[in-house]
């Protein structure tokens, strides 16, 4: 008798676990952030988080979204796709977040993107650079707030095609990002200038500390120009080695994000001059009231200059807020419909999310590193603005890639 009573009680208790907890409406608009908060990637991901917080706090101070405050939960994926996916599952299943965002790791982004599609939860990718995310593997629930490598490649090729170099060498980090940046530049450069030829390639492991032996080998091959596809800490490491060997003086080279503050600020005045680079955000350019206001706000809150990640995070918060406002209620499907094509004021001018591939249309800045009396680190000179429309794949190309 006692046993069966216990059994029944137990069943009730276990059953209780599976009762839907949606009995009361959520009091907040919940955003779940999965990103890497351990290791070298943290230098970038904290900018996204701080930019997001800055915007969210401002929105909350004004009463939130549809009377609900934005609440965000962060999870550390330790740069591992499997952990990231589990974190995303936990955020959706247990925390019941309305929107997912994050990941600097493309493999993690792709894993979470699959899951977001199955669960029908909007997912904003805030730093990964793989073009697969919203091209080949794109779908209704994934949004791309960062430029993907294909775009970076096209923007750089646009600028490099006008230069007289013919014999190219490609060198880079031996992982997806490195290869896709290099391929992006090379594919389009060949289209724009059929005379260019590739004389050789060098690939090193991610996290390579000393580039000197690689650089001496490239010097020996005597190319006209080198496309350097490094990311993360490889950016600074390569620039330091390029400066120490005199490579940066004698050999013109390009790195995506070479002119980014995250690459130049740590090196102070010792960074090499004359390096070609592209970036989606520079805190000193464009010199507009909007950009100045954003920089001031960010500096006041965090005592440092905003870098590109800060812009990604800031805009993600704003698009989430405005999307739900436009939808008129907290409804994921309506939200997606209203974000498609939505255009907002931003520090770099009015910016939209394109409907066909959910790509944020950020302008790209192409420039050359130079000493700047105004700052105690190098900045970009000779800035050319490449508007998004010039370097984004067309909607037809996006459709074709998804077949």
């Amino acid at each position, binding site marked *: 008798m006692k046993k069966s009573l216990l059994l029944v009680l137990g069943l009730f208790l276990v059953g209780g676990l599976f009762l839907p907890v949606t009995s009361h409406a959520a009091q907040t608009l919940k955003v779940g952030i999965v990103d890497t908060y351990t290791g070298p990637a943290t230098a970038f991901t904290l900018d996204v988080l701080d930019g997001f917080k800055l915007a969210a706090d401002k929105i909350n101070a004004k009463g939130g979204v549809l009377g609900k405050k934005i609440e965000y939960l962060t999870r550390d994926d330790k740069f591992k796709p499997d952990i990231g996916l589990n974190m995303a599952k936990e955020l959706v299943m247990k925390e019941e977040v309305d929107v997912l965002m994050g990941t600097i790791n493309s493999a993690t982004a792709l894993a979470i993107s699959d899951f977001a599609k199955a669960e029908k939860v909007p997912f904003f990718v805030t730093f990964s650079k793989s073009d697969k995310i919203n091209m080949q593997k794109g779908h209704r629930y994934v949004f791309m707030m960062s430029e993907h490598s294909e775009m970076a490649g096209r923007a750089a090729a646009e600028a490099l095609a006008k230069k007289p170099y013919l014999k190219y060498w490609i060198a880079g980090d031996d992982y997806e990002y490195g290869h896709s940046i290099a391929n992006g530049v090379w594919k389009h450069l060949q289209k724009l200038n059929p005379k260019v030829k590739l004389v050789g390639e060098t*690939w*090193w492991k991610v996290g390579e*500390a000393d580039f000197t032996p690689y650089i001496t080998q490239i010097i020996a091959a005597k190319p006209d120009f080198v496309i350097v596809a490094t990311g993360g*800490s490889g950016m600074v490491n390569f620039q*330091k*080695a390029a400066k120490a060997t005199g490579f940066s003086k004698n050999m013109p080279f390009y790195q995506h994000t070479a002119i980014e503050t995250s690459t130049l600020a740590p090196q102070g005045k010792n960074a090499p001059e004359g390096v070609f680079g592209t970036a989606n955000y520079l805190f000193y350019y464009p010199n507009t009231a909007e950009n100045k206001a954003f920089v001031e706000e960010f500096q006041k809150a965090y005592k440092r200059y905003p870098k590109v990640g800060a812009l990604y995070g800031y805009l993600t918060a704003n698009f989430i807020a405005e999307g739900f406002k436009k939808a008129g209620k907290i409804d994921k499907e309506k939200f997606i419909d209203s974000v498609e094509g939505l255009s907002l004021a931003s520090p770099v001018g009015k910016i939209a999310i394109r409907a066909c591939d959910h790509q944020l249309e950020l302008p790209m800045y192409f420039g050359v590193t130079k000493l700047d009396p105004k700052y105690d680190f190098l900045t970009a000179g000779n800035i050319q603005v490449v508007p998004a429309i010039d370097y984004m794949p067309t909607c037809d190309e996006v459709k074709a890639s998804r077949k």
Partner: protein
Amino acid sequence: MPVDAAWVLFSEKVLSQILVGLSRTTILFIVASGMSLILGVLRIPNVAHGSLYMIGAFMAYSVSRLFGGGSQGFWMALLLAPLGVAVLSFIAERALFQHLYKREHLMLLLLTFALSLIFGDLTKLVWGAEYKSVPVPQIFQGFVTIIAGFPLPLYNLFLLAVGPVVAVSLWLFVNKTKIGKISRAAAVDREMVSAVGINVSLVFAVVFVVGCFLAGLGGVLVAPTVSVTLGMDHTLIMEAFLIVIMGGLGNIWGALIGALIFGLSQSLGILIWPQFGIIFPYLAVVIVLMIKPTGLLKSTW
């Protein structure tokens, strides 16, 4: 790139890559020798070794900033940062390690693993996540062309000089000092050493601190050539482990030979096959262990 015949062996390219590879070897040797020393005497692979190297690099950044970030800053960092790491390791040893010497080895191993995680987070707490950079001191800025057409950064030349100095100092420590002799004895036969009335625990402490000092020194020396970042410990710990295994567990000279093989196979491998320069050092490890599974020199284990 096809490789031509034997003349390639003595071409300028190869000589230049050897010079460059040797400077990388210096850092690897300094870190791996410290690891080997600890491994030989305490009988544990110090998993926290990479973290101490990282902390050494971050301390170098702080000290160099403190002294104005110029050349003076670098020299002060070279002096103070390894000492800082040594002090940190001394505290860890007296507070934690010494209570475990009588326990299973596994306990010590777990402790070093735990410490590596703690030190990693501690670094993030103290220095934040931003990349840091230590400038190359004024006198070592620029490069020399020993071999026509191949620049060798002056700083690499400085590293080439530091390597032998450290190697000789280590040799003196192990062979000429009393504590060095005792630690060699302890590495071979611990029971006997304590049986003749020597405080083994103290010997262990000294060896551990010296080993960690070397990790810190490696961190300071690498700082001007790279960006100082969280996670720089991971890359290095793998390489240091492989070098120690290749050279013979606990054998300092083995660490030297291992570092040479590792550094040179990388820089020369790049010449042979630039797309796959990565694999050559690991290939070298495999070949060495196939020929001599116990490592090149006599293991103290």
